[in-house]
């Protein structure tokens, strides 16, 4: 098991970073974080035409690049650093993995090429809405002529309001769970972009009322494969968070090395230096965890879920900590709207609870603990 990027991987990172530095800036973030926006067709197209990023984990047979999670991790880290707003986690990670894992061969042939070239933008609606007035609500699939009808509310669906391929998890009357394709123009489908504290990544609520759907693969006991899909997405997210955390640290360090107070660069004060040293350690630990988790996926290790939980909780805390300290080191200016730091802070805060908060992942990690990691 190697923790070090190969020269090829390092070159790949350089290519991705250069592309994002050229093509995406916080000016784009500010434009795309407006209500209901979320992504830019032109940029999404270029990302896929020039670098084929949407197809990273899709096998070459289906038009993808056939890479593993090590490479996906590199992409996610760079996207986290640049705070890319694009349906990447939703489509290239979650939806692509769902079709790969749950779909029939026909599903793969139909859907993967579109996901790989970015013409299909998928989303995976796995979480049921659970508000105070509707606790434990379950989305149901009922057999109907020529397919099934879905009823229920799915919540926190990443890019759910803009996706043109909707994959919805639902349960049939006999208790089997399945994953269903829903057309983005289906009747009975209501899609609402949620107001969240992180406008840089959009989440939607899908309300389904007798929505016609077709099954992806065969319904059955999907708990375990679905969990594995979410675990893999969690690892991808952890990489994104590590990239964001590093960006925050170096942004703080850069500022501290140019800002003077009391006749000195503030970066020469131990209060600032030691904060940054602690952050670096925390981020390095989280990065090791993210790399380790990617290796576990690529090697099909039995500890993949365990390492995913470790990666998620360490990345969550490192990112939030780095973003908060980045504001602190910038002082008042770091708290203003016009300064960019809050954009990452908001992404960090939202990512912290996405796919489970740190304490739930810590508890799961201990339950799964194994000396094999």
């Amino acid at each position, binding site marked *: 098991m190697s923790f070090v990027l190969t020269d090829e991987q390092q070159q790949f990172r350089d290519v991705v970073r250069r592309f994002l530095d050229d093509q995406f800036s916080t000016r784009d973030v500010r434009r795309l974080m407006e209500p209901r926006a979320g992504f830019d067709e032109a940029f999404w197209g270029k990302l896929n035409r020039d670098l084929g990023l949407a197809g990273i984990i899709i096998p070459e047979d289906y038009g993808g690049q056939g890479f593993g999670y090590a490479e996906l991790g590199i992409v996610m880290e760079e996207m986290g650093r640049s705070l890319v707003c694009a349906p990447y986690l939703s489509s290239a990670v979650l939806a692509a993995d769902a079709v790969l894992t749950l779909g029939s061969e026909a599903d793969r042939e139909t859907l993967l090429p579109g996901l790989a070239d970015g013409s299909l933008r998928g989303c995976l609606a796995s979480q049921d809405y659970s508000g*105070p007035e509707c606790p434990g609500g379950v989305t149901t699939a009922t057999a109907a002529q020529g397919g099934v009808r879905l009823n229920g509310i799915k919540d*926190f669906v990443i890019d759910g309001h803009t996706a043109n391929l909707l994959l919805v998890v639902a349960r049939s009357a006999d208790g089997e769970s399945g994953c269903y394709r829903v057309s983005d123009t289906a009747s009975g489908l209501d899609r609402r972009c*949620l*107001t*969240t*504290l*992180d406008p840089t990544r959009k*989440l939607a609520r899908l309300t389904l009322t007798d929505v016609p759907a077709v099954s992806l693969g065969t319904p059955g006991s999907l708990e375990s494969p679905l969990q594995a899909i979410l675990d893999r997405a969690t690892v991808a997210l952890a990489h994104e968070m590590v990239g964001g955390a590093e960006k925050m640290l170096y942004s703080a360090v850069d500022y501290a090395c*140019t*800002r*003077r*107070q*009391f*006749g*000195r660069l*503030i970066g020469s*004060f131990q*209060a*600032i230096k030691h904060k940054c040293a602690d952050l670096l350690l925390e981020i390095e630990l989280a990065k090791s965890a993210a790399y380790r988790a990617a290796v576990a996926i690529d090697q099909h290790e039995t500890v993949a879920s365990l390492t995913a939980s470790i990666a998620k909780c360490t990345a969550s805390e490192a990112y939030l900590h780095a973003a*908060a300290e980045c*504001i*602190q080191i910038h*002082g*008042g*200016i*770091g*708290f*203003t*709207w*016009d*300064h960019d*730091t*809050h954009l990452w*802070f*908001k992404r960090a*805060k*939202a990512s*912290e*609870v*996405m796919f489970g*908060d740190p*304490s739930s992942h810590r508890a799961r990690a201990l339950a799964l603990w194994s000396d094999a990691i």
Partner: protein
Amino acid sequence: MTTQDEVRREVREWLQANWNPDLSLVAWRTLLAESGWGVPGWPRQWYGRDLPAALTPVVDEEFAAANAVGVAKTGIRMLAAATLLEHGSDDQKKAFLKRILTGEDTWCQLFSEPGSGSDLAGATTRADFDGERWIINGQKVWTTSAHHADYGLLLARTDWDVPKHQGLTYVVLDMKQQGVEVHQLKQMNGHASFNQVFFTDAVVPADRIVGQPGGGWQVAMTTLAHERRGADGLRGANRDSGLKGSIYDEERAEIATVMAPYKWYPQRAGRVDLVLPTAKALGRLNDPVAVQEIARLLILAKTAEWTARRARAAQAEGRPQGPEGSLGKLAASEVARLAARVHTLIQGDQALLAGDDGAVDGMIAEVLLSVPATSIAGGTDEIQRNIISERVLSMPREPRADGGPFREVPRN
């Protein structure tokens, strides 16, 4: 020595004779200022009655009992008043104090600059004397209420050839003049409660210097000490008497204007009050992990409150006001930071939701996006730790890198 009962009788009689809810707010407050009952702790010569601090609560009680409106007491105006009382000339006191109390004038504080945040004494906004008046050029920032203030308390550099603390001068600046431009500054939580203020050949008459030229830092210290002590009257100013009548409406409007920029301050402080109710409502008190964190937060907030009370009690007994303000401020940062964590732990992914979708009308999300200001505004945690270690624990200062003529000090 005056007793509590004597004061109570005296104020009650005066109110019986004079309180009239049908007066206009300014008319009533003018009467009040002249009587000395509006700020009984101030000197008799300046609208007060020289009453010891221990006896002023009696006056407040009687005003409350009579539903009588008091003088204007919120916002930067009270810092201006305290500073002028201590350092102002008689002419300045005459010109400003009464209108502060009647609420006719509002004030703002012009200390921080883009290049001097933690290092306030590094201000580079300049005041140059043209033989007759001071000409102001430069930029200030983090100025609450600058957009409607009548006057500003301005710290400006008048001498570049002496060490930095000795070249500053404190002046009262007329905000309603050409050469003063005010721009709003939006924060990461969406509110816009501060301003940037730009000066281009703005003018300050020679007699508007507070203290001596070059003595501005000492005067600013007075303003800041009152600010840390909470003399800006922001605590509890949101209570609404609910009384009906034009004078009450006028008072409410006046307070609403002053308080508008502070609407998000409770969220900035972490809204500890929301923790137990939301945890109960969501059944989180059954989770031992949440219980630990909630307890940690409530205990921190409560012990900080007790510590502040202990400091106030010590002051009330005549012991000197120390730098407890810095301890309290550091505690407040801890409380706010921990509160953000606890709210997230309680809410889970619901913490993400903001605005109308959000928990407690979006207040939780607003807390999460507001608390980062707590450890910065009014002096960063790092500055507070310097103050505590140097002034309470008497630890040595760091070697200075900003001595000598300010002109030669490395700066941004």
